[in-house]
């Protein structure tokens, strides 16, 4: 569906994208996962024909993003990061405008957006600017779908959105996938990686890894422990100064540590006891995507500096 080969892009001195290569298959939800500034939006703009890369090739459904941009613009749907609809038009008017852009009508592809649009239809005469965050998002998605695109680009659709609306959106994406639409979605929330079929982890313009979330986790080669005690902020400091601990980060109600050399639970337990910790709990755990990302980002930084 999408083929990206050695794409690079520079803004002035800043290397926004560095030799990015991946493929997206038909009918999959592909996630670009990375923090702000990792190059997700730039990559989106290149794929949606809004920007031209400095080097490399990118193809969308067989069309070249530079040469055949007109063809691509006909078959893709795009939802930019910001809420980019007309705030001073009503819900219905917005949808009409976007339908007309693609020379279609609301009725023609209504079946596709029905599930989503029916939730906001009661407010169709409200100005888009007066909608709540979740409803704006549904409207934006309806507008991006109105012409029945074969490929949908969603740039950070869940940023600043509460967990409930986020879950809802992912539910909608699953459904669209069943309707045969391929989806490329970017997000800064690592925990959403698990909802994608495959992901590309991105950091500072580099692609750290492209794989299924499961495989990325399987490839994690470090020993990961979770540690907790009655004084979590002191625990963090104490763990950080331990010479055998490579990294230590707070994760929810525990801290995750990786080890340089094998030490035993008991050794660590005793070390912490001596420092006055109580209710110490140490467990071996399997990593999440976030652990993998931090590990890969660290390695990536090492590679870049070498």
């Amino acid at each position, binding site marked *: 569906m999408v083929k990206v080969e050695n794409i690079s892009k520079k803004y002035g001195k800043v290397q926004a994208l560095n030799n990015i290569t991946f493929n997206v298959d038909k009918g999959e939800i592909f996630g670009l996962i990375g923090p702000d500034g990792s190059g997700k939006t730039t990559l989106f703009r290149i794929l949606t024909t809004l920007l031209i890369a400095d080097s490399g090739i990118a193809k969308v459904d067989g069309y070249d993003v530079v040469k055949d941009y007109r063809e691509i613009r006909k078959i893709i749907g795009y939802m930019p990061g910001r809420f*980019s609809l007309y705030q001073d038009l009503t819900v219905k*008017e917005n949808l009409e405008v*976007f339908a*007309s852009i693609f020379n279609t009508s609301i009725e023609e592809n209504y079946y596709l957006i029905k599930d989503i649009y029916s939730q906001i239809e009661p407010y169709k005469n409200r100005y888009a600017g007066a909608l709540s965050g979740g409803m704006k998002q549904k409207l934006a998605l309806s507008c991006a779908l109105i012409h029945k695109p074969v490929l949908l680009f969603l740039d950070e659709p869940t940023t600043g959105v509460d967990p409930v609306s986020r879950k809802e959106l992912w539910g909608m994406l699953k459904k669209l996938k069943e309707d045969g639409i391929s989806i490329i979605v970017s997000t800064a929330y690592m925990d959403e990686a698990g909802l994608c079929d495959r992901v590309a982890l991105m950091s500072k313009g580099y692609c750290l890894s492209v794989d299924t979330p499961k495989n990325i986790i399987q490839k994690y080669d470090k020993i990961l422990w979770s540690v907790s005690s009655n004084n979590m902020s002191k625990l963090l400091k104490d763990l950080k100064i331990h010479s055998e601990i490579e990294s230590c980060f707070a994760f929810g109600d525990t801290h995750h540590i990786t080890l340089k050399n094998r030490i035993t639970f008991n050794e660590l337990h005793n070390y912490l006891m001596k420092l006055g910790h109580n209710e110490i709990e140490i467990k071996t755990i399997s990593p999440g995507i976030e652990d993998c990302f931090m590990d890969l980002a660290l390695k990536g930084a090492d590679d870049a500096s070498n």
Partner: protein
Amino acid sequence: MGQFFVFIKKEFYHIFRDRWTMIILLILPVIMLTLFGFAITTEVKNTKLGVFDPSKDIATRSIIQRLQANEYFILKKFISNPDRIEDEFQRGEVGLIIVFPEKFYENLLHTGEGQIQLITDGSDPNNAITLTNYATNIVASYQQELNKTAVIPYQIVPEIKLLYNPRLKGAYNFVPGIMGMILMLICAMMTSVAIAREKEKGTMELLLVSPMKPLVVILSKVVPYFFVSIINLATILLLSVYVLEVPVTGSLFWLIIISLIYIFLSLALGILISSLVNSQVVALLISGAVLMMPVLLLSGMIFPVESMPYLLQLLSNAVPARWFIMAIKKLMIKGLDVTSIYKELIILGSMAFFFIVVSLKTFKNRL
């Protein structure tokens, strides 16, 4: 075609739903025109009259009497030395001086023609034109009375001399000036701001990532402002003719034609600005600084081009509003026909062509 109309409709929604846009577009021209208009139509009463009358005959006495009998003038003094005329003005002793030649009545009888001179302070042009108009009318009424009994018609020709601002800049100038300004404001500024707004809000991104041709997007943005400009053109003309009583003495047809050329030119400038900038504020600043300031300062609307330093005169040649205002003045106030504005037509036409080409060339299909 369908999408084009939907887009034009959308653009009108944007205009109608923003109170400030509406005010700027439709009310501002009216306010500007009436403000300027009523600022100049002040009644002139009890102006001090000075008289230089070496002939002192029956005709000069009647004319002086008629002037004096009128509420507009009060006879202040007789001046004996014509060299002191300018002095009188400088001391603010008089507002208007009427100068008769020697043997006025005798000449009038023999030659059928009498010369008089009306001198006033041209630095206040609005006032000056009112005063000389009143005085001329009064003199004309005397001439009419003379001719009732005369076999050969007598003619008294007042020569009007304006001190300090001999070309009488300012009066009536404001109508063409405001036309030049309003049309530029609406076409260039509002269009560029409207396009920049789409860029700022991110909707332009969506429009670009669609099969819609960017040119169509831009044209659909331009059309509503074109209509609004036409409405404004009509408002300005109607207001100036019926409220301010500045008539269109020349060809209305050509006046509209040249206005249309100017509108196209301004729209092209608006598009050009919008393709250079990404935010509304910058669009506003650029159109304010690069378009409005020259219209105000270099077009001859406020300061006569002739009295500018040479460099600024050269610069003013590049200001479209200058040529537009010149043409409108000729057509509207001087009552000349199309042959007199060929030069302006050609200059504005080629400027319009140039800017349309440049704005289309710089227009980007991508971000």
